[in-house]
Every structure is written in C-alpha cells, then in structure tokens.
C-alpha cells in the first residue's frame, strides 16, 4: 500500500474503500438475484427451465403452471429471502451489541418465548380471537413479551449492562424451553408432533399471505438497523468510547433490541424457529470482510437471504422426504462454519 502523505492520497484511499464496498455488495446482490432465479426452477411440481421462463416472460399461459410460479414458488422464495435476511441481521446486531461471537437471535431468549407462544396456540387454542393468524400472532406477541421481561430483569439502578442482559436472556430462554417441553409432555400425540415440527422451523406453508404478514415487521426492523449502521460501528468498538463520541448508547441499544424483536418475531411467526442462521451468516461475513457494518449490514441482508434460499431449496427437494429447513441449517451450517473458521487466519475477536 503506497504511503499516504497528502490529503489527496487520503481522499483517494477513502474513495477506493467506498468503491470496494459498492463492488462487493453489488456482486453479492447479483449472486442473490441469480440464486433466486435458479431456485425458481426447483420444486416438487416438475417444470422444465424453459417452462419456467416461459411463464415468467408471459409466453406460456397455463393456469396450473402460472399458479405454481406466481402463487407458490415466488412468494415462498421471497419469504425465504426476508427470513434469512432478518435472522442474519438479527444475529449480526446481537453479536455486535454484546461483543460476543456466540450471540445469536436466540440469545435474548426471544425465539424460545415465541416458540412457547406458538405452542400455547397449537395446544390449547390460546389466542383464538386472531383466527387463522392465531399461531403466528401468538409467536409474535410472546417474542415481544419475552424481550420486555428480559430487559426489565436486567435493569438495575445504574442502567442496563450488556452482560446482565445476556444472562437474563439465557435464563428466560431456558425457562421457556422448559415450558415448551412441559407442554410437549402433556399434550396428545397429534399436537405434540405439530409442536415439535414447528420448533424445527419450516417455510413450507409460506405463500403471499405469509409474506404480507412478515414484510412489515421485517422491513421496519431491517431499516432501523440500516439507519443505525454508524452507531453499530461505534458501539462495537466499545460502549464507553461510543458514548464519548456522542452516541446515546442506552437509547440506541433499546432501539436495536426492538428492531431485533421485530425481525425475529416476524420470522418466527411465519417459519417457526430456524436456528443457526443468525449465528453462522454474520460470523462468516465478519471473517471475510471485517467488522465495518457499512459492509456487514447489506451483506448479511443479501447473504442471509441467499443462504436461506439455498437451504430451503435443498431441504425441499434433495431428499426423498421434505426436511424441515431448521434441521438442515443445523446439520449443514455447523461443519461449513468450522471449515471457514479454520481456513481464515484473521483473528477478529480479542
């Protein structure tokens, strides 16, 4: 790297960095688009590539084919994308806020709370006033309830320390997991299998109404994080230092936690608990491009979406039975993560 001496040198350096960011994000975005299109080709209803393109460009007009493409595959892939993006982004925020590589969306206990809410709905019909939105509605409500409880538990006279928040989250997560287990023991077999299936996470039933349901909280959550990219950078560099540089750490933290609850709640509501995505994806990108959230946030959104689309496509078509995608993310995600960890030398956690 040439010696930086003059102001022009610095300006050029900054512009090169900026261009690099744009190039990286654009390429990953392009990859996302091509992955999306490839995934459109795959499904249990057999359509050839030419048929898919034919329907997309309007040269083929077959009722069933159009239905499959526009009402089944397209919304499902969109749901995959936003769920993957939301979970990855939530994981990123948790890891940066708590400066903990093991942090994931479930670390605040909110996915366990959501699972419990959904289980209550499945087992006893709690929340029946929401009609067909009963299960996703309960999941979402309990997600926020848990977040509130965790925050209240962690509050002391002197404010809310990040470590205390983490501990309270782990405790509440364990508590709700216990409650779900209790429910599983008490209910009859049909309900039991539904609960277990739900906790494994799946995008099987996701169509346009799921997308419409989830897009608002997910988009709002993601936009909030986008707005707070600078603050995320500063807070991850050190909370005290961030405060000294003008960041209102307490407020920013609350807002980010709410954004996370929105993203996790919205995802869990339509797809159940899909683990590992929020742990692996941000970590992998951090290892590859470093800790600057200007890069990480868009990459986690786009990369998380790609990851989810790939996982879901494999889960639904590669085996003779359709696997719940949450099972697959754990099975495939972990070894891949270990591989990336061993081949990258850059130590980024002190």
């Amino acid at each position: 790297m040439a010696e930086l001496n003059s102001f022009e040198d610095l300006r050029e350096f900054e512009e090169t960095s900026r261009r690099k960011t744009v190039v990286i994000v654009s390429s990953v975005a392009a990859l996302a688009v091509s992955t999306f299109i490839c995934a459109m080709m795959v499904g249990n209803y057999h359509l050839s590539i030419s048929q898919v393109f034919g329907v997309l460009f309007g040269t083929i007009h077959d009722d069933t084919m159009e239905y499959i493409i526009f009402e089944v595959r397209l919304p499902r892939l969109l749901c995959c994308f936003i769920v993957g993006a939301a979970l990855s982004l939530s994981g990123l925020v948790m890891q940066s806020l708590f400066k903990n590589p093991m942090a994931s969306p479930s670390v605040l206990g909110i996915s366990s709370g959501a699972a419990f809410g959904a289980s209550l709905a499945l087992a006893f019909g709690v929340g029946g006033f929401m009609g067909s939105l009963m299960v996703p509605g309960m999941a979402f409500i309990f997600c926020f309830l848990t977040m509130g409880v965790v925050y209240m538990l962690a509050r002391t006279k002197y404010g809310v320390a990040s470590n205390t928040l983490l501990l309270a989250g782990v405790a509440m997560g364990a508590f709700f997991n216990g409650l779900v287990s209790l429910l599983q023991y008490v209910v009859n077999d049909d309900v039991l299998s539904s609960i277990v299936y739900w906790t494994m996470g799946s995008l099987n039933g996701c169509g346009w109404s799921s997308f419409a349901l989830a897009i608002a909280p997910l988009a709002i959550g993601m936009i909030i994080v986008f707005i707070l990219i600078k603050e995320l950078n500063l807070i991850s560099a050190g909370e005290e230092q961030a405060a000294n540089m003008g960041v209102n750490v307490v407020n920013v933290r609350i807002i980010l936690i709410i954004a996370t609850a929105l993203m996790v709640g919205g995802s869990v509501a339509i797809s159940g608990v899909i683990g590992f995505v929020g742990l692996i994806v941000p970590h992998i990108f951090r290892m590859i491009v470093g800790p600057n959230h200007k890069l990480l946030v868009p990459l986690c959104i786009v990369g998380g979406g790609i990851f989810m689309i790939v996982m879901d496509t494999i889960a639904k078509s590669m085996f003779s039975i359709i696997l719940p995608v949450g099972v697959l993310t754990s099975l495939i995600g972990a070894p891949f993560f270990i591989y990336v960890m061993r081949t990258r030398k850059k130590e980024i956690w002190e």
Partner: protein
Amino acid sequence: MQKNQIIVIIVAAVLVVAGIGVYLLATGEDAEKKGLYKLNAVVTEVNMGQCSATPGVIVTLEDMYEAYYGDLVDDTLTIDDAKADTDFWSTYGTWDSLISDNGDGTLDVTVSTSAKGDETVTMSVCDTAVVMGTMYSETMYFLACAENDVEVYSEESYTNAGVKEFLSNAITGGMIYSYFEDYDVEYMLKCVSESDYFDLGVTSVQKVEPEKLASALEDAMSDGNNAVYFASGTRMTADYYDNNVNPCKSTGANYAFFGPTTISDVFSCVEAIGCIMGFDDETIDEVIEDIQLRLYKIYYSVESKTSGTTDTTYAYWESGLGSTVKSSMAKVIVQYLGFDASLLDGADHDLESLLEDNPKLLIFYTNDSRTMDEKMRVNQ
C-alpha cells in the same frame, strides 16, 4: 444523514402499504382457483374414532366410497355371494379366533401386548367393563344394537331402552369422559351418564395411574359383578405393562388387551369382546356378517369401477394440525377403496408436491377446526 433517513422511512412506508395491498389482493381473489382446489379432487371428512380397526370403520368406508364413487354397483348382494368370492373372502372374510370356550363357564382369551406378545388368559364371562379405548365401547355398542334390532348410529339406537340399559350397566368407567365430547362419541354421551362413570382422567394406557385403575375396577366389581379391563395392547410396552395389569391381578378383575391392525382383526375382536361380555353366538355372528356383507358390497363396487385402469390414483389424508396421517389402518382403508396409499407417509407434503402427485381424494377429520380454505391451502 437526515436526507437518507427520510428516504429510508419513505421506502418503509411504501413497503408496508405494498404488504397490505398484497394481502388484500391475496384474500380478494377467487379462492376457488387456488391451493388444493386446483386438484378438483373429491374432499371428504371422516370421524377420527372410526378410522382404526374398530367396527365403525365400515361407516368410514361407506361414506368415503359414496363421496368418491357414488352409488354402490349392486346393493342386492348377499353374504353367500361374499363367501363365494374367494379373492374377497380369503383376504377379508376369514379371521383368527382369539377366544375359546372351555365349556365350564370360563374362556381362554389370547391377549396381546407389545411387552409380552401373545399370552393366554383364562377368564369368566363378565358383566361390567372398564374401557380404555373407543374400539371396545363401539364393539359393545354394535353388539347391543344387533341384539335390540336397531341400526347402528341411528337416532333410534340412542333412545332404545335395551341398548341404553346394556351400555350404562356394562361400561362403568374408563378413558376420560371429555374425550367423548371432543370427538362426538354419541352413543357414550347418550347412553352412559358422566355421573355413573368412573373417569380415569387419561386417554392412553401410558398415562394410567395404577391406584386409580384399581379403584375403577373395584367400582366395576361392586354388587358382585365380574369385571374386565379392556385396553389397547399395542401401546402397552414393557414400561407400562405392570401399571395396567397389576391392578387387575390385585383386585381380581379380568383383563383383555387387543391390538387389531387389519379388517380381519376387527372380526376377531368383535367375537372376543362379544363372548367376554356375554353376548350369544347368534348376535355375534350377526354383527360380523353384517360388516362382512357391507364390506363386500364396497369391494365388489370398487373392483368393477377400477377394473381395467392402469393409472395410480392417490389419496391424501391430513390431520387437524396439518400433519399427514400414516396409521396402518388408514392405509388399509385407502387401499381398500382402490387408491394408492403412498402419500400416507406422515411426511410433509408441500403444495407443489401435492399438485404434482395429483391425489384425487382428500380426506380430513370431522373435528378439524380449520376452515375449508385453510385445509385447501388457499392462503398459503
């Protein structure tokens, strides 16, 4: 950053509005053209309690046949026609006896459990029963109806004095009473009152409390009655065997566990239960033959309607919580009606794979609380 923030907020608002728009669009469109409606399949609902190896399975078969095929091809067939049709009779007409009369007032019954396989127990004819499983109560109901010359599941049968007297005297307790309410088991609700029923509070042998069972059996044996405990043997693995058998041994009550999985097993159970509860051979044979004849009529009709066709037609059966049914009896039912049972595998079937497999018969349960549109996955 202010300018960017404003742009971003506008984008968010647009997205939210778009989301609402999409949702309204999705619900506004003609639901008939979406989801599983595209299959143009026959949709039928069956009572969950009559889909296992119980006499009521004949009702399920008849209803499903009618829903899909319509009228029977020949309603005038007789039991002799059935016996003459060797293909039918050798598969569905013959059955193994689980019981033999020793001539001295005792019966030898072949009891089967997962824990100990087949065992022979000797018991006397019984007056009362503690019943853990609707197969047993339904069998007794069928037998009582035959004895009193009323048609099963008719309004008359629920008000017939003989049927009511038998059931209320014979069934003194057993599985949780609310089950009958949840699953509309009419004959129990109408003939056995909750106040006279010793409620064990559970629905399966795995959750039975030995002490409570012992009390129920003592209650059944009061007034010098011979009591029997009926329960499912399939669920009775080694962990649960003692909990269910020891109370019988300690109170001196009899026990009989069966694990029917085929249609022939239904007949075996009808005979065994009938003998144990003191019904005469004539009544028992009448019930069995009636079911056999009804079965044959369906069999005959299905054979004629499907002869010559080489295409596989699938049926798809889903429970109230969206999971695929996979019980062996469900497969038997579906195959009996001429369908391929491959889709009854308990695995997840997404909309695409169902549209690909194209099942022509969709089966749901009557106690499924979802709306038809939900079942047909319209708003996926």
